[in-house]
């Protein structure tokens, strides 16, 4: 079942008299509970597509539909509300709040997403999620004392603690070495499958594609190819 749909989405950037069309009418559907990987060369428009889908920037034309909501016609406050309650984000860098401990980062996310949990229930929830990402032993640590991999684990915990419907991940392993990248991708796959979170992930790392249920290849602002990965891998074999 499709949870998230984009219809004929276009994005044009204007620089003086120059107009550059980054997305040229993209159609995309995300199936509930599945991991969809967006791949393509640098400049193909995959990150722009992800940020438009996540409500971090608006499309020049086209529709972005999430559940019953049309993000294209909503104001900033309405989009912010959806972003805080229904979406989760993992970026290339962890982007943790430098003055909050690991535990506080997650408490803040619960606070922002206006979950109706009481304080002690929130603390319990934080404990569970931190155990899930293997960071419960560092809950009082500040980001400055964490390694890159640890930071990214906390960022994943922050992205999922409010049980989002959709998780957007933009090159989540780009700043990590291959061992840590694999660990992080294992973690993302396990968590999203356990919590039935629909995931859209942008990556240029071929190895990461094996974690996706679905792959979309982009080139020059258009979707060129769409396939289930397992099928494609078998085909290649």
């Amino acid at each position, binding site marked *: 079942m499709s949870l998230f749909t984009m219809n004929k989405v276009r994005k044009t950037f204007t620089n003086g008299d120059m107009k550059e069309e980054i997305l040229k009418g993209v159609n995309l559907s995300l199936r509930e509970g599945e991991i969809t990987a967006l791949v393509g060369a640098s400049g193909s428009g995959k990150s722009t597509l992800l940020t438009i889908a996540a409500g971090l920037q608006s499309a020049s034309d086209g529709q972005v539909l999430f559940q019953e909501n049309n993000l294209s016609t909503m104001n900033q406050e309405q989009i912010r*509300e959806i972003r805080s309650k229904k979406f989760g984000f993992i970026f290339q860098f962890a*982007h943790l*709040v430098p003055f909050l401990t690991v535990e506080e980062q997650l408490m*803040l996310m619960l606070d922002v997403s206006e979950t109706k949990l009481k304080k002690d229930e929130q603390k319990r929830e934080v404990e569970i999620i931190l155990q899930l990402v293997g960071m419960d032993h560092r809950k009082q640590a500040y980001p400055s004392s964490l390694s890159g991999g640890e930071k990214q684990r906390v960022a994943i915990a922050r992205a999922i603690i409010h049980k989002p419907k959709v998780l957007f991940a933009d090159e989540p392993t780009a700043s990590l070495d291959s061992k840590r990248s694999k660990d992080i991708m294992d973690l993302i796959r396990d968590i999203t499958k356990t919590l039935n979170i629909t995931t859209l992930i942008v990556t240029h790392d071929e190895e990461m594609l094996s974690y996706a249920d679905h792959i979309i290849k982009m080139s020059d602002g258009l979707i060129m190819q769409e396939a289930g990965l397992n099928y494609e891998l078998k085909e290649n074999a």
Partner: protein
Amino acid sequence: MNLALKEIKKNKVKFLILGSIVFLVSLLTFIISGLANGLSQDNASLIKDLPEGQFYMNAEAEETYNLSRINSSMQEELINDYKDATAFSIQMGFLNDQHDKQQSVVFVTSTGSEIFKDVKAGEILLDRSMEDKGVKIGDRLTNPQFSGEFIVKGFVDQSKFSHAAVAFINIENYKELYRVDEMQLVFIPKENAPQEITGLQSFSKQEFLKTIPSYNAEQMTLTMIVWFLVVISGMLFAIFFYMMNVQKIGLYGILKAIGLKTSRLFTMMWTQMMFITLTSLALSIAISQSFNMVAPEGMPFHLSIETTLILSGVFFVIGFIGTTIASLQIKKIEPLQAIQQGEM
């Protein structure tokens, strides 16, 4: 979750430095203001400490109280017609102590009233600064133009005129000293004072202060120094708070990206501004008021709580404006911009 206080708690040194700057600059302004007010008091506390009212001098005196003479019949008429009206005179002079050492003073006398100190013939009341110059109660002071002696009956606080100590003497002694029968001025408290009296020129307290030679020029210079300092300090505050917040654009962008309301970011910025400003100003007020109490006797320093609170209010408003200008920048920032900036 109070993000503002959590950030202050984590970055104590950064906020301590910022708070120290606000504290030092505001303390500097308070102290300079205290010195300027002190000089102003030193020049005219005799007049400034009077209740609000109207001063009248002869219209022909061309706004120079020294040249004013109010004839006796008019003086009598005014004192009888207007409740609490007082005629008084001010003249520069000097006194010789028992060791024949000369001390400059300003002789002040008045027709009996509660507004000016009432002294009996042969007695004198002096500003307390004379006590520091070795004059004691019971001392006998002389003046070559006065046939008798003045016995010091006591000292009064904050009675200065033209930077000299005021000496209150009896009206009969004054007449002998200066060979005059008429008083220079009439003062009528505000509630009883008429706007116009034929033959006399009327002055409010502020207007009268301006007729004192050098007072106006001195005050303009001092006021200019204080407000120049206030403006520079204020701009410094505004720039500091602006810079402090603009530097955190990346952080605010990420907070916006995860869904934090812009109003909550504003609250965070204002809370930090208020915390730093109020703490620093409270410390500055405490130290400047303590200095007010322990300042050396000879140093003209006068800092009222009212002045301190007005200056604090100005600093607070300027800090608030600086933060608000920064917050408008923050309002415009796109979360995507912060994400693309890389790791904080």
